[in-house]
């Protein structure tokens, strides 16, 4: 099974996608409630200014480009989780007999779903951290941080190089975990899913996931923000001063353990997102997004 990107619209219809319509509706309800409670009445000009500013329009266009790029280059070419799972399985079978452990079906499902969730999340943390700490990769990841206005589709504003890295990460983690589980338990493998997505991800993340890239500063409070990344914490991550903090996806635990945690209450409410003065213009079109990182790398190499 490869990434489900049959159509751009499929992403809105698929429960394993971040922007599934159900999650968007829940996020919208939360956002309206939060806005009315914290700010006041919602006006049409405010909505227009948010949904139709230059960054938002670029995100809409780039969302379609992102889909086309994946459909043409990632899915057919890149290593799939299936291939990695079979490699893992064949290697394990070559060094040992299959285990056929007699666990209960339900327990295997819980263990498999949880393993995919936890290992998937920790691997996202480390790849994200690598994108921030490696000077060459940061040039590509800057694309995502160039947005000064955040909306749910900003999630898809990623340079193709970064898309490939995340796809490889997914193939490796999901493939190795699946290979090991098939080796241990044979065919008694299934995933606990809710709305088609990993149950743990849906329950702990999906309904507020779309608020991460928004201006709705929804905090989980000091205690829970050490465990789960709140939308407010991810917005802190998009602020220039804290750009290398809060690198986690679902769990804040990794940030806490590895020293990159910043609680939202500890950061002044400063809605200035992006890379800083004058940087947005470097990434304000699709062509620029694709070319600029390579140009920056070339300049760095020449300078050194």
């Amino acid at each position, binding site marked *: 099974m490869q*990434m489900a990107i049959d159509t751009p619209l499929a992403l809105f219809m698929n429960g394993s996608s971040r922007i599934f319509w159900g999650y968007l509706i829940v996020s919208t309800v939360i956002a309206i409630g939060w806005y009315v409670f914290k700010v006041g009445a919602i006006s049409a000009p405010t909505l227009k200014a948010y949904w139709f500013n230059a960054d938002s329009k670029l995100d809409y266009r780039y969302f379609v480009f992102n889909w086309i790029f994946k459909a043409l280059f990632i899915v057919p070419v890149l290593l799939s989780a299936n291939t990695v799972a079979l490699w893992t399985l064949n290697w394990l079978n070559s060094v040992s007999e299959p285990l056929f452990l007699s666990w209960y*079906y339900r327990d295997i499902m819980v263990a498999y779903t949880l393993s995919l969730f936890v290992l998937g999340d920790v691997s996202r943390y480390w790849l994200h951290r690598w994108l921030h700490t490696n000077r060459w990769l940061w040039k590509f990841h800057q694309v995502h941080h160039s947005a000064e206005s955040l909306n749910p589709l900003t999630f898809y504003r990623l340079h193709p190089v970064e898309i490939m890295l995340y796809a490889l*990460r997914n193939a490796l983690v999901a493939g190795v975990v699946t290979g090991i589980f098939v080796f241990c338990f044979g065919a008694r493998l299934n995933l606990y899913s809710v709305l*088609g997505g990993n149950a743990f991800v849906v329950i702990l993340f999906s309904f507020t*996931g779309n608020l991460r890239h928004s201006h709705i500063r929804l905090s989980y409070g000091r205690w829970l923000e050490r465990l789960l990344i709140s939308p407010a914490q991810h917005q802190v991550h998009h602020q220039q001063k804290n750009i290398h903090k809060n690198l986690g996806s679902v769990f804040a635990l990794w940030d806490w353990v590895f020293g990159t945690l910043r609680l939202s209450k500890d950061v002044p409410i400063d809605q200035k997102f992006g890379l800083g003065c004058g940087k947005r213009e470097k990434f304000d079109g699709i062509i620029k997004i694709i070319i600029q990182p390579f140009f920056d790398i070339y300049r760095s190499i020449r300078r050194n």
Partner: protein
Amino acid sequence: MKIFTPLSLVCLLSVPALSYADQNNTVVKDPYASIYDNVIQHNANNAVQYCADLQTSLESKSSDVRHQAFVQLAEGWGRVQASYILGDYDMNAMDYPLMIDYFHSGNEDIHESIERLIGRDSKPSTALYKNSYKTMGAIDSVMFSGEWSERRKEFAEVMVANVCKRFTQISEGYKANRDAFLFDVDKGLSLVVNAEIEHIYKTRDWRIAQVSGLTKANLGETKPEHQQYPYSEASWAFIGGILETNKQLLGEDQQPNVATIAYEKHGKEGIHAVQVALASSLEAYKNTPVDHNFNLNDMIPIFQGLLDVQKAFYRHLVSQIGVSANLIDADGD
């Protein structure tokens, strides 16, 4: 990027909506009921009958009749074990296979123990105090390793009664758990496929490779005495039973079965490879010379066929799990 006008954006988003079809097609339950009734339950019922036939044959003076009855039961037992899933519905049933057949379990030489007990004068029901002394391997030993006698018959009666009791429990257990199987068909199917893969592997490795010298550890050293039922030589029938159940579950001409469900859910490609490899294994089984005695060269085609079945099964299995689709986007943050 002028091509991305609002109009083209709308078109790109809308047209695919027409092609977006629900990938989780609802599969009618008929194939599941068919698997349960026509394969699992049917084979268990047959085993009960074959066991009763063996009990009757113990009264016969003809060694051929007794031998034929045991071979038939071995084949029936292979059919039951190839899709044995009762243990996942009834905890007590987890150990029934071990109570029927002790092959590849423990280090005790059952034949030696049985011969020692026959030599004593204790009552058979007392002498055969261990469960492993009342299993298929023990029956094979007592019925076919020495001259048929009243003492051997009395021992065989106790052993066969034990095995028959277990087969009856399995048959009754399946009757009691039919609704549970059909209540969660995904679980049921994964248990059936798992049983298939497990016994394809064990048949290839334990019952063929280790006997004929096709494992890394014993390459070239054929040891027919290590086969499952060395005295009756009914091991080959057991292997046939395993293959026949797989044919029932996957055969193109045996549908509705596992293949029917795989076609509907995932298309023909993956499961077709399993079917082809299984057909090759069945062909190799049929073409093996009658007097093979687990000769290495005679075993290579079926060994290879079963290896291909296992690999094709794994490929199909991994592709149908759909790991990456369920992760909530593989992208970054």
